[in-house]
């Protein structure tokens, strides 16, 4: 009888242990305390590589830690350049006085240079500078298998990719010092804004079915045998010092019809007008740059599925619909609105009304929602063009001030005690960075970009070295709200593992949730 009792007790204990083990944290499980985060805000600025702004941030892997080899750029034939080519047409944007002309940029040493160096060009952070190619195939050619030594060779702007700024006096530098700077955060996809906004919401490459029988046919790129580089045209200058490279076909579509460079949304607001006599809410589908409506699931779909409230706040969205676009303010960017490419958010749908919200001119409506404590559980905020820090039409200072002002409002919001804010950039804007991106799948990750984690749960004054990419934002949202995992995240994680790379994190490396 006694033996039977002991056996029963032992069996019960074993069963309890097994049950406990089943509920214990497993690798890949959300970290304890993640549910303390109730409000997530993602602020998506434009076109800065990590070294471009934070290359001298204390404790981060910056330019100071770059190897000599990674600092030197090579010519198109693989030889080391004796000097950088000039910035074609000059370093400053048209109309800037005094200008930094092409002649003034001749004979720069083959090395990074600081644009606002008082002993150099002495160009202020408030000045708009020359834009650079930031395209899908060129980005891969520039990264050159992780050596990052062909940024100048495959640029359209001469020396410009090697430019950086002393940003130590900026408002966001101070925010990074107060909270967490991620120094191994990479853009989710190779190339430009269009593609990386898709990666932010979908972790997928948009698709143009039957493109070879469509108006977009001439926009199908021609690649070399590697499939990762464009085929160079016979009349392309042989050296970076001789001019901008030329390609057989540098289009928006891959040879198998994925859209990787900028296409216009199928719905207004779009760069393409409605068809004559057609629906005024649509873009003309016959235009070669109009992307057909997309149907791949997005993070918005997943959030809606689990009844998690969310919104995409776009600066100057309603202004542009009501008044048309204007430059230099607000300079609304049609291809920075990723949900406007998806059939689920077509004009007239309830989902569009609920989730695609006007951020107001200068972000006024978004800031009002912050102040009112009225943000949904997940918010994405896209600043209007003149406040997004994009080279060519925006300067760094205006966007920096604006985003820091938004952060200041968030810190005072009634929702702040349970908030996580991610401030990052969509992509590198064609600008050099010295750290090799993790090897993964055909779409990315691309060049390293800045990311700052702001939260009452953020470690203070911390540099997080965990590898992340744009899809890490989706990982966090997915884990926190227990969403179905988007296919592109599964593919990315498997590809990273298959290449022997450490797994990409979920942004919690910089948090103290206990």
């Amino acid at each position, binding site marked *: 009888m006694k033996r039977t009792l002991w056996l029963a007790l032992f069996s019960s204990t074993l069963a309890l242990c097994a049950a406990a083990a089943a509920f214990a944290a497993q690798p890949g499980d959300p970290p304890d305390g993640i549910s303390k985060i109730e409000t997530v805000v993602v602020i998506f600025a434009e076109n800065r590589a990590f070294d471009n702004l934070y290359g001298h941030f204390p404790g981060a892997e910056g330019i100071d830690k770059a190897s000599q080899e990674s600092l030197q750029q090579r010519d198109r034939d693989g030889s080391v350049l004796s000097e950088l080519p000039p910035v074609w047409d000059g370093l400053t944007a048209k109309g800037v006085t005094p200008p930094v002309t092409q002649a003034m940029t001749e004979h720069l040493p083959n090395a990074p240079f600081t644009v606002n160096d008082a002993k150099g060009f002495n160009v202020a952070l408030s000045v708009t500078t020359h*834009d650079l190619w930031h395209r899908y195939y060129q980005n891969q050619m520039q990264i050159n298998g992780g050596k990052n030594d062909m940024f100048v060779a495959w640029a359209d702007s001469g020396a410009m990719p090697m430019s950086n700024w002393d940003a130590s006096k900026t408002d966001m530098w101070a925010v990074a010092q107060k909270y967490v700077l991620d120094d191994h955060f990479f853009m989710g996809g190779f190339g430009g804004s269009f593609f990386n906004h898709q990666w932010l919401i979908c972790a997928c490459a948009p698709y143009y079915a039957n493109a070879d029988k469509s108006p977009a046919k001439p926009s199908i790129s021609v690649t070399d045998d590697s499939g990762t580089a464009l085929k160079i045209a016979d009349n392309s200058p042989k050296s970076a010092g001789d001019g901008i490279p030329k390609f057989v076909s540098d289009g*928006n579509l891959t040879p198998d019809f994925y859209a990787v460079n*900028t296409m216009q949304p199928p719905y207004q607001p779009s760069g393409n*007008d409605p068809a004559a006599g057609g629906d005024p809410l649509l873009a003309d589908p016959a235009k070669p740059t109009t992307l057909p409506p997309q149907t791949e699931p997005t993070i918005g779909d997943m959030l809606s599925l689990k009844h998690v409230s969310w919104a995409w706040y776009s600066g100057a969205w309603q202004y542009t619909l009501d008044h048309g676009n204007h430059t230099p303010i607000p300079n609304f960017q049609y291809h920075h609105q990723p949900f406007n490419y998806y059939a689920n958010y077509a004009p007239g749908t309830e989902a569009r009304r609920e989730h695609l919200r006007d951020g107001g001119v200068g972000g006024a409506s978004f800031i009002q929602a912050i102040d009112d404590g009225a943000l949904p559980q997940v918010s994405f905020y896209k600043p209007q063009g003149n406040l997004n820090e994009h080279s060519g*039409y925006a300067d760094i200072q205006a966007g920096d001030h604006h985003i820091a002002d938004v952060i200041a409002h968030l810190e005072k919001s009634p929702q702040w005690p349970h908030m996580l804010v991610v401030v990052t950039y969509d992509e590198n804007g064609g600008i050099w960075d010295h750290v090799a991106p993790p090897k993964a799948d055909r779409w990315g990750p691309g060049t390293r970009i800045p990311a700052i984690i702001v939260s009452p749960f953020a470690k203070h004054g911390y540099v997080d070295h965990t590898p992340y990419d744009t899809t890490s934002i989706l990982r966090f949202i997915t884990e926190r709200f227990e969403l179905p995992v988007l296919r592109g995240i599964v593919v990315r994680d498997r590809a990273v593992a298959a290449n022997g790379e450490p797994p990409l994190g979920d942004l919690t490396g910089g948090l103290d949730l206990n």
Partner: protein
Amino acid sequence: MDADRIVALVTAAGIELTDRRRNAKGDGWSLSFASGATVEVGDDGSVRASGKGARTVTRLLDLPTAPRSI
């Protein structure tokens, strides 16, 4: 002004080229940009900007203010 020069000047201002093709007549290039602007460039050097972002492109190319053939 040829098509390469126009592309260089417009893209330097952060306005991405989204399409470049020979026009239907085969006597010039049709260029599209992310702002919505379209620029028709004749092989004879004529330039005409139209579409949503035409005013900005006109300024960048130092074309007459009202978009028209030159």
